């Protein structure tokens, strides 16, 4: 990651630079910053990193505390008598695995549908001029302003009347659709950066427009598709509100955010289990996120927030 970014970074001021001291060479200075300034920059960044990760480390700490020492006033990162008791407990004595499985089934299916629907629609928005195009784009932007809680009221009542409460039906449809507007915006911005000549060349060679889209545009937009998939996946995986409304009290089909809230609610008895479950959920999500963050950065800046 550092190599990709530093290659883009400018190195201004190289012309009038003084010879580097040993210390400033160590800190890889090219701007002629003084060693003291570099030290301050590093200290600031170290402080920011600590603030960013300390609360997460605390979750790890609590997850490693044995049951009888859950409520401790110690601030040590690794507790003295660390044990995996909470992990075994949450895996065997609670519905955690079931909740994660449910989340996985729902999230996987819905994010794939979401990407398919968004990629085709965004292609139409990028390449075709049809009546209502501008209005459609503004509508998509406007949907981002709707507070989630505002949609919950009618969705809940409509779902009650359609007998969709306590099943996956409503949830799967809702997840597939709610992420579409944002995905279209990202993808449209990305398609716009690809010259139309590419498809025209393919069509001259006898490909249909859909064929050109499938063979040329889709492979070129893989990073953007990955971002959109990731966004859809994260949005559904981390969603609490829709799941709470649609799944109601049917604990056997709950997704993990509902389950975790239940564990956290029993503060004194299950705090350790909540922490262990959080760590288990976090590891794959954070890994996926950090791995894909280079796509994320390039995709977001190339498409979504292009000026």
């Amino acid at each position, binding site marked *: *990651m*550092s190599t990709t*970014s530093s290659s883009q*970074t*400018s*190195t201004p*001021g190289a*012309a009038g630079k003084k010879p580097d001291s040993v210390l400033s060479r*160590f*800190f890889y200075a090219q701007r002629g*910053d003084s060693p003291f300034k*570099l030290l301050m920059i*590093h200290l600031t*960044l170290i402080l*920011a990193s600590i603030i*960013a990760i*300390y*609360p997460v480390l*605390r979750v790890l700490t609590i997850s490693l505390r044995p049951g009888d020492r859950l*409520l401790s*006033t110690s601030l040590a990162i690794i507790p003295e008598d660390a044990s995996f008791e909470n992990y075994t407990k949450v895996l065997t004595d609670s519905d955690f695995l079931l909740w994660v*499985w449910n989340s996985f*089934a729902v999230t996987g*299916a819905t994010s794939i*549908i979401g990407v398919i629907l968004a990629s085709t629609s965004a*292609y*139409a928005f990028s390449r075709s001029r*049809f009546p209502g195009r*501008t209005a459609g784009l503004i509508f998509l932007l*406007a*949907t981002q*302003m709707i*507070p989630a*809680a*505002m*949609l*919950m*009221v*009618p969705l809940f009542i*409509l779902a009650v009347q359609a007998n969709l409460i306590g*099943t996956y*039906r409503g949830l799967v449809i809702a997840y597939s*659709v*709610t992420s579409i507007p944002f995905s279209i915006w990202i993808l449209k911005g990305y398609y716009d950066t690809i010259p139309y000549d590419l498809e025209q060349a393919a069509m001259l060679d006898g490909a249909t*427009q*859909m064929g050109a889209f499938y063979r040329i545009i889709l492979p070129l937009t893989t990073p953007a598709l990955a971002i959109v998939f990731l966004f859809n996946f994260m949005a559904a995986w*981390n969603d609490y*509100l829709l799941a709470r409304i649609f799944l109601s009290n049917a604990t*056997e089909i709950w997704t993990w*955010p509902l389950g*975790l809230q239940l564990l*956290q609610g029993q503060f004194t008895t299950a705090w350790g289990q909540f922490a262990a479950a959080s760590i288990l959920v*976090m590891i794959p*999500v954070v890994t996926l996120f*950090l791995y894909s963050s280079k796509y994320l*950065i390039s995709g*977001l*800046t190339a498409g979504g927030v*292009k*000026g």
Partner: protein
Amino acid sequence: MQSFDMNVITRSLGEVGSTVFYILVGIIILELIIYGIFGKLLKSRHTLPAMLLGPAVVGLAVLIVYPLLWEFNLSFTNMSLRRFGDNAQYTWLACQDNPQEVNSWVTDCLIKNYADVFRLPVLKQAYFFPVLLRTILWTAVNMFFHVAGGLGLALLLNRPLRGKGVYRTLIILPWAIPQVIAALAWRGEFNYEFGFVNLMLGQVGIPPLQWLTAPGWNFVAMCIVNIWLGIPFMMVILLGGLQSISGEYYEAAEIDGANGFQQFKNITLPLLQPVMTPAIILGTIWTFNNFNVPYFINQNELETSDILVTALFRAAFQYNRYGFAAAFAFVIFIILLVYSIFYIRVTGALKEVNA
């Protein structure tokens, strides 16, 4: 506790799978209908875009447009838990049952729910305007720290620096963590006796604070959590913007003798504008609409910590005043709409849509 075995696995796979199957069948039928109408019947040159857009349009219509229209209708009824479904009446019909209570037909009957948003408590005690002011304060405080923190860190990380990748990965972490987990974990850490916040305050000699029960401190706690969560996003977006600024500008400025601050003010800020403006608009709307942080930190306890969207959730799902909540929702929506139109007018942020 449920047992986690093959039965459970196949059950949820079956339910999800069948729903996906119905969706796919629906899409195919829809495509055939569109092809039939646009391609064969009208011979329109817009057949391909219509087929590409069809499924998303229908999905958005069913899940966003229709519910919103339905909610608008709902906002003129007295639907609640007691008067659910067909038992609900339009407020002007309900008026006829007790005409002696009517002072003004418009505000007491026609737009009763909308009038109630402004004249009655939206929750048990909290009135609309204090909640609105709190939401504005919440948005302003959060956005200030998001932009200031994000810009500061992005500027530092945009320099040639050893270990840049490590710093960035660590600082991005709060963004990567599921909001539900972050907010719930922070709530635990705001515990009076055992949370690290009070323990750390104790180390520097400050007496512990009532983060979860004192109204003012609860609001501060919400802000701390959301600032912590939001800075990485701003930082990443702004860093992307900074990296796209060509180094030549700075070289030229340096030759002309501009100092660091002048370069920042005259080169960095203007050239960052196209990236920063949409990020701030989006960020403001997301913060204004942020549900998870206030909801999980406060857990529906203190009314003094509710912002508009959590108050809306409580009005609907705790007090079950559906008709009233629908009106409340539209009032919130109009506030956001006015803000966005104002902002777009001022900054011209939507130019590219018309391009």
